[in-house]
């Protein structure tokens, strides 16, 4: 079916899909359906697992209703022009029993005023966090709270946007082919299996429940953000993702921090930059040097890989899909497959986390 993003330019995929039975079985157990896209990230387990684990429909939401979360996922993917994720959200809606006309109708409704005020406010906030950045998101957050969302519900909206921001950048930067996903509702086997798949989708979606807060290392970067979700199942999921990202060894911890620093500076997110600056000092890069390399995205202190990836992180802030895909493809000449996947994952996670943190960390819990 024709989609609103059908005209978005998309480069041919340049990543190699790697079969990993264990990972694919994990995705199937968790999501109820095979997820072929994780094969492209299988070489770096934390990236592939994050693409599976940070789906909000699998036990991460306690306060936000799933329908609003679906709409938020749809609108963020539309704003970020991620053809793959947009088609995936549409396909899930279609599997759940919405006909194609109804899905298109929902897309049209997203631009209208006849949605309930709280849903409308959630969508406006989603647009602001993902597209306008912190400058507009603070106002949209206040509007969301005034529309009746509790602080916990508003934080879940912010997290839902962040997961979509992550998935969008991950699949866009790697140029994962969107056409098979876009064609799902047109394929005869899919149409025949639709009731069965719908049952599988419904069976594997579950609401989360409050959990015991997980104690975190207080000086871990973004611990304050994780703590803002204390008591929610989001906290351990986010903590695990962040921890696995920092400890993965394909790129140095300093390189990852610098990529987070670029995103923080570019948005701008002041609380994030303070967080990154402290962590960089622990890595031996003092405040002046860190500030200088973030100002110029270059410097004699940087390793060749850092000099490549700081401008790359910057490219992921406000991007056009094809341009970002060409830049990512050009990195292949300088990085191993594992380094490239980790770089894509770090940039995607940095965008998700810093955009959310700019608002959530600035708010009292």
């Amino acid at each position, binding site marked *: 079916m*024709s989609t609103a993003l059908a005209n978005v330019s998309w480069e041919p995929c340049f990543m190699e899909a790697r079969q990993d039975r264990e990972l694919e079985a994990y995705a199937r157990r968790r999501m109820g359906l095979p997820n072929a896209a994780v094969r492209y990230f299988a070489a770096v387990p934390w990236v592939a697992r994050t693409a599976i684990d940070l789906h909000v429909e699998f036990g991460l939401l306690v306060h936000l209703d799933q329908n609003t979360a679906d709409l938020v996922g749809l609108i963020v993917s539309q704003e970020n022009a991620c053809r793959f994720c947009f088609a995936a959200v549409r396909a899930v809606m279609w599997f759940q029993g919405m006909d194609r006309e109804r899905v298109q109708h929902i897309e049209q409704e997203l*631009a209208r005023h006849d949605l309930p005020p709280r849903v409308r406010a959630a969508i406006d906030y989603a647009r602001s966090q993902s597209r306008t*950045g912190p400058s*507009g998101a603070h106002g949209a957050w206040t509007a969301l709270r005034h529309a009746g969302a509790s602080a916990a519900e508003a934080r879940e909206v912010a997290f839902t946007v962040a997961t979509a921001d992550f998935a969008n950048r991950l699949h866009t930067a790697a140029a994962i082919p969107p056409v098979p996903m876009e064609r799902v509702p047109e394929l005869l086997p899919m149409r025949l299996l639709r009731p069965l798949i719908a049952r599988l989708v419904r069976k594997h979606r579950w609401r989360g429940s409050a959990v015991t807060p997980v104690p975190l290392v207080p000086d871990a970067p973004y611990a304050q953000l994780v703590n803002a979700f204390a008591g929610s199942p989001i906290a351990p999921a986010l903590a695990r993702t962040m921890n696995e990202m920092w400890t993965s060894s394909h790129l140095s911890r300093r390189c990852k921090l610098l990529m987070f620093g670029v995103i923080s500076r570019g948005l*701008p997110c002041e609380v994030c930059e303070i967080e990154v600056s402290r962590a960089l000092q622990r890595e031996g890069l003092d405040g002046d040097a860190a500030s200088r390399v973030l100002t110029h995205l*270059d410097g004699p202190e940087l390793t060749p890989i850092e*000099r490549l990836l700081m401008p790359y992180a*910057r490219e992921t802030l*406000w991007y056009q899909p094809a341009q970002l895909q060409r830049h990512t493809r050009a990195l292949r000449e300088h990085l191993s497959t594992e380094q490239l996947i980790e770089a894509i994952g770090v940039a995607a996670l940095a965008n998700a986390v810093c955009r959310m943190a700019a608002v959530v960390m600035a708010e009292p819990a």
Partner: protein
Amino acid sequence: MAAMLGVAIGVALAVLVTMWLQQRRTSAVLQRQLDAAAEELQRLQQACARLAPAGVVDRLVADGVNELSEMPAQRKVVTALFADLVGYTAMSERLDAAVLARVLNGYFQRMSDAIHEHRGHVSTFLGDGILAYFGALQPNPWQSADAVRAALAMRAAMADYNHELAHEGLPALNVGIGIHRGSGLAGLIGSRERMEYGFVGRTVNLAARVQTLTRTHGVDILVTEAVRSELDGSFELDAMPPEMVKGIAEPVVSYAVRERVAAKIQ
């Protein structure tokens, strides 16, 4: 009697079915038109994002232009790039109108491409001049370096274009570029009939004045001290003697941009 009733019911049923089919056809046509309009709106929104910040476009789509006129302008730090063709007037008198239009369009296209590639946006074409901003639509702490990189890309694009023009026996074009960074008011500016997302302030005037100094100093790219202080050592600059310019009380210090020496990645 019964036969007549049967015929009447049959006719009534046929009419109802025909009406129902027509209704379905009309609904399908309307749905297609609605879908096409929604797609068009999406495309329009994406296109508008190149002309104004995302927040402004969202308000434009949601509230319409009239409500937008109420939107307050924001004070922002922006880098303005002003480019102008050198010797355009003389050339315009020598060339046929159609050829001149083609040459100018080729020039505008190449310069705009270089600006977009470095995250700038062309605000307006003023005769043969181009006014572009960096950091006006989205936050961009690296805006000054982007503007200077764009100017260097414009220089390179101009050299390529002059090769093409020479093959056709046409005169070479030369461009002068002035760049300044400073604060000003950004927002929707204009009348009820015609509005545009613009930037107002001394920054734009100074960029234009610095551009005129390229002729005085015999160089093609000049930046002000405000821009120079934002650049790292990879840009090779030559300090020019301070010059008075129209509308500015103090002599203006400017720097000619020679080139950018980027160390190679090992």
